């Protein structure tokens, strides 16, 4: 049953500052935040707490009016100190000052046999109330899944090929049981298989190896081989009307813990990486943690960009910004806001490039070379020039150029026909990276997805 | 009522009769004028082969042109062997001016008829013959006026359907046509060689000699078309000239 897929297309971005596989000994963060903007498609968040309220870990903080049962819960116990709003009173952050000791909301616990007999409805109720439902992402559109849907299959990618990505096996060490329980719960939601996809060339971690009743597939190739969207495309492609759910391994474990321990456990191991970090390593913290404690005194210089998530799909945050809900890494790279004399023509081996146009000599370097890359765009925005390069970094049978053009001209029919259901931002992030005309393709794609979703 | 079949049929019938009647009436009325217009057009082209006449045509009214034509031109029709013909295969009379050269061109050479227009004015004489051929893109045609010595060209007038403007289309200009004046279609040995437009422009007269004319830069292929048109048609007329002019006794030009 299990499949082996070898991919050729793609591009590995080898950045300097990989996290050492050790867990730092740093005092935990004081403040945590829930950012409604982390949840794609959440347009009408409804706040359940006010400044000054005290919450426990697992206390519902907000929900989307479009999906009233799915609660987003506080990762810690403490006091709501600030509700930050942006333009048009858009809800940005709900900051919580954490207690020394975390107090948990209590949810029902189940043992192994309970879980076997648990009904889908009961499971759904516990998950939506217990703040873990948001881990289930639905394809197409990459939004939080709907409780009433039944997906044709569920996909879990057990490896991450993004630059400077956290090693999932390392971050999930010790979560074997929780992961197993999580899978048992997920099995209730689909008639179809659950796919766990491994790196063909890596060792399969004990976290995943013991799982039975699921389909194990192996993938090889450069990034984005680890992207669950790519994996779906090759194993169980999405056509119009299809639904597939994806869950991160961390999410599976979190679901498991809600049932086995009866708590919303937001703790996670994250990687702090990037060329500007003095000591890149892993940290044990919680979802939504403020990063200031981690980066303080740990940087080579201070003209840097802090990124929650990875460099391809992540989000810029401040030095005292907060880790995103779905993120398991923080990356610090130099800012690139300077003019470079004749930067558009001088030959260099230092600039990382997928292309080999004149003077871009990075292809001569050994593939082991690690690059320091800043945030400069290396060029201005230009008209969309189709170079055919996108096809080389997206290992799917999709004409990205045409898809983007369909999005730009708001041509629903073509977006659908060209396969917009099969991709979300992360799948085409490399296109954005290599794009000669420097467009914000991920944002563009999301616009298209939103158009289709709301039409 | 307006939609009933009977109404539609009656309406259509009336409309057909009215419109058809109108059109045939008009065609009857305009018929003679149209015939005259066609006639005038042909005659203008024929006269245009004589440089002196061409200049004069500009300022003449249609009536004057027609009068002038009947004054100075007399015409005959010859067959491929140079014999004069007066009737076609159906026994109808052939009028030289009405011979459609283009339609003739589609027939095999030996079934074509060849009109000759004889020009005589104050002792100056010329034989004007029509020519037809293929240029680079489409048909080209013209009239060539030949002096009574049957060697020297008095003048030519060319026209074309679709030659390249600025290149091949230059054959309609006076400047290019003037190059043919005075050229001869027999070489020094007395062999018929026609007149050839050479490749490239700005050759000196000494370079060209009596049988060649200066070419048109960039329009060699049109020039080739003109060359073969002249060679063919001037060639076809040789037997007429042999039988009817050189043997002066056989001269029976019927005055038009």
């Amino acid at each position, binding site marked *: 049953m299990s499949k082996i897929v070898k991919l050729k297309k793609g591009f590995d*971005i080898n950045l300097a500052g990989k996290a050492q596989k050790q867990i730092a000994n740093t005092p935990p963060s004081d403040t945590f935040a829930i950012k409604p903007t982390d949840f794609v498609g959440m347009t009408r968040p409804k706040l359940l707490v006010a400044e000054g309220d005290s919450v426990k870990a697992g206390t519902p903080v907000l929900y989307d009016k479009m999906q009233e049962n799915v609660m987003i819960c506080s990762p810690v116990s403490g006091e709501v100190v600030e509700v930050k709003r942006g333009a048009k009173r858009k809800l940005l952050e709900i900051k919580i000052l954490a207690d020394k000791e975390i107090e948990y909301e209590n949810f029902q616990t189940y043992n192994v046999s309970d879980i076997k007999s648990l009904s889908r409805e009961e499971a759904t109720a516990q998950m939506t109330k217990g703040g873990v439902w948001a881990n289930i992402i639905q394809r197409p559109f990459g939004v939080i899944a709907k409780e009433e849907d039944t997906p044709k299959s569920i996909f879990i990618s057990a490896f991450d090929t993004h630059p400077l990505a956290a090693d999932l096996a390392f971050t999930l060490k010790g979560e074997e049981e929780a992961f197993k329980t999580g899978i048992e719960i997920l099995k209730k939601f689909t008639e179809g298989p659950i796919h766990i996809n491994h790196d063909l060339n890596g060792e399969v971690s004990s976290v995943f190896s013991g799982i039975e009743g699921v389909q194990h597939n192996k993938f090889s190739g450069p990034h984005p081989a680890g992207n669950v969207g790519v994996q779906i495309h090759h194993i169980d*492609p999405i*056509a119009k*009307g299809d639904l597939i759910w994806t869950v991160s391994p961390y999410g599976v474990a979190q679901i498991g813990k809600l049932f086995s321990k009866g708590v919303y456990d937001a703790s996670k191991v994250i990687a702090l990486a990037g060329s500007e970090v003095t000591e890149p390593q892993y940290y044990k913290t919680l979802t939504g943690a403020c990063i200031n404690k981690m980066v303080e005194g740990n940087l080579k210089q201070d003209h840097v960009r802090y*990124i929650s998530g990875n*460099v*391809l*799909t*992540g*989000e*810029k945050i401040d030095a005292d910004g907060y880790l995103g809900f779905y993120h398991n890494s923080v990356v610090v790279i130099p800012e*690139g*806001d*300077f003019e*470079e*004399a*004749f930067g*558009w*023509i001088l030959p260099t081996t230092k*600039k*990382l*490039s*997928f*292309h*080999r*146009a*004149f*003077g871009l000599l*990075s292809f001569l370097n050994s593939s082991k070379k690690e690059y320091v890359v800043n*945030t*400069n*765009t*290396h*060029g*201005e925005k*230009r*008209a*969309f*020039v*189709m170079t*055919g390069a996108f096809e080389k970094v997206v290992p799917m*049978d999709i*004409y990205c150029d045409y898809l983007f053009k369909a999005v730009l001209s708001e041509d629903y029919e073509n977006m659908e*026909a*060209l*396969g917009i259901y099969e991709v979300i931002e992360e799948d085409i*992030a490399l296109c*954005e*990276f*290599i794009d*000669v005309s420097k467009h*914000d393709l*991920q944002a563009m794609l999301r616009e298209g997805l939103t158009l289709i979703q709301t039409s | 009522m307006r939609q009933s079949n009977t109404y539609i049929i009656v309406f259509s019938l009336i409309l057909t009769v009215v419109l058809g009647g109108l059109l045939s009436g008009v065609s009857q009325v305009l018929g003679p004028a149209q015939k005259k217009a066609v006639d005038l057009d042909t005659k203008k082209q024929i006269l245009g082969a004589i440089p002196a006449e061409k200049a004069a045509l500009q300022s003449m009214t249609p009536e004057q042109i027609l009068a002038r034509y009947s004054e100075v031109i007399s015409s005959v029709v010859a067959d491929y062997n140079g014999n004069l013909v007066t009737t076609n295969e159906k026994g109808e009379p052939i009028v030289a001016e009405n011979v459609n050269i283009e339609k003739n061109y589609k027939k095999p050479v030996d079934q074509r008829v060849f009109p000759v227009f004889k020009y005589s004015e104050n002792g100056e004489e010329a034989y004007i013959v029509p020519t037809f051929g293929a240029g*680079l*893109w489409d048909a080209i045609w013209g009239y060539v006026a030949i002096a009574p010595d049957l060697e020297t060209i008095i003048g030519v007038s060319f026209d074309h359907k679709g030659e390249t403007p*600025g290149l091949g289309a230059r054959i309609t200009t006076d400047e290019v046509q003037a190059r043919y004046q005075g050229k001869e279609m027999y070489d020094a040995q007395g062999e018929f060689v026609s007149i050839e437009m050479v490749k*490239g422009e700005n050759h000196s007269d000494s370079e060209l000699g009596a049988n060649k004319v200066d070419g048109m830069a*960039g329009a*060699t*292929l049109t020039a080739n078309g003109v060359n073969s048109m002249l060679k063919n048609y001037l060639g076809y007329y040789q037997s007429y000239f042999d039988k009817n002019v050189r043997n002066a006794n056989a001269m029976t030009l019927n005055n038009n």
Partner: protein
Amino acid sequence: MKFVQKGFDKIKPLFEKGGKYEKLHPIYEGHRTLFFAPKIVTGSKGAQIRDGIDLKRMMMTVIIAMVPCLLFGMWNVGHQYYLATGVDATFLDKFLIGAMKVVPIIAVSYIVGLGTEFTICVIRQHDVNEGFLVTGMLIPLVVPPTIPLWQVGLATFFAVLVGKEVFGGTGMNILNVALTARAFLYFAYPSQISGEVWTYLGDKAPVDGYSGATSLALAVEASNSGMGVVDKLAQTNTALSADFFSLPNLFYGFIPGSIGETSTLAALLGALILIATGVGSWKIIVSVFGGAFLTGLLMNQVAANTYMEMPAVYHLVIGGLAFGAVFMATDPVSAAQTEAGKWIYGFLIGVLTIIVRVLNPAYPEGIMLAILLMNVFAPLIDFYVVQANKKRRLARATV
């Protein structure tokens, strides 16, 4: 460099919103970015790092790939000049006289082209695009050295305006802009560019027996007179050099022709650069040559005129086939954009080139028209390739 930067900073307020020359901002920006890669950084969401490439660098790659053709072309203009006038000359002499003839053409092409581009950018208030960098160099390379400068200017203006700017600028055009300029000249002022005498002679008269005709013009002439093309080539200009139109000479490009396109060798050097850098599609280049060669072979079998009988390999080295295949057909904007489409597109260019050459006595240079025609049909090819992709997706859905 600091001081240039300061200079720019100093005049910057003039061109910013509310400044005196606010409208001319695109021109300011265009120049500043020529000196400095801009300090734009990535947005707050999405890819936080970007590839080192940009459009300027890509265009520059193409220009560099053209350098062999350009340098050879300059030398060859001089070479032909001295051959035709029967004077011995050194390498430098030849090069200088070539440069004297070619540099003004390049200058006119760039001045008119960039002028048009800047004007339109100011009127429409969009950024100056670097697309013209390549076009501006291509135009001089595809015209004969004898071209009047005003024609170069007019053709450039026409090509930039009608061929590109009306569509919204670089990246939107449907026909290759440089070829549009060349076609404009070809149809607007055919007498200068019809290929009969393409050697710069200055005010000197050529030596006896010299023919300045291009290999293509000779081939057509031979075909018209029923003479073997190779024989004709072998007989022409033998007074100057015994193997003037020999196969190696045709390949090296020591022959009259458009400035940059006589040398197949130089074009192949350019192809190497383009393929190595991945800027030009090797699929297109290979399939153009392949299509041309196979059609040449097929024509050998048909052999209805002497041009058809010419050995197929000659087709690859006479005229501008190599230059067109390498620099024109690969233009990413006007070529087919799907990988499968590129094979079809290139192959058909090759086929059409040979068909136009051997069957169309009016236009000796087939490659130009073949590329333009395939430019017109490239979107259709892509359409069907993409359509097939859509069908695959649809078929999957019904399984």
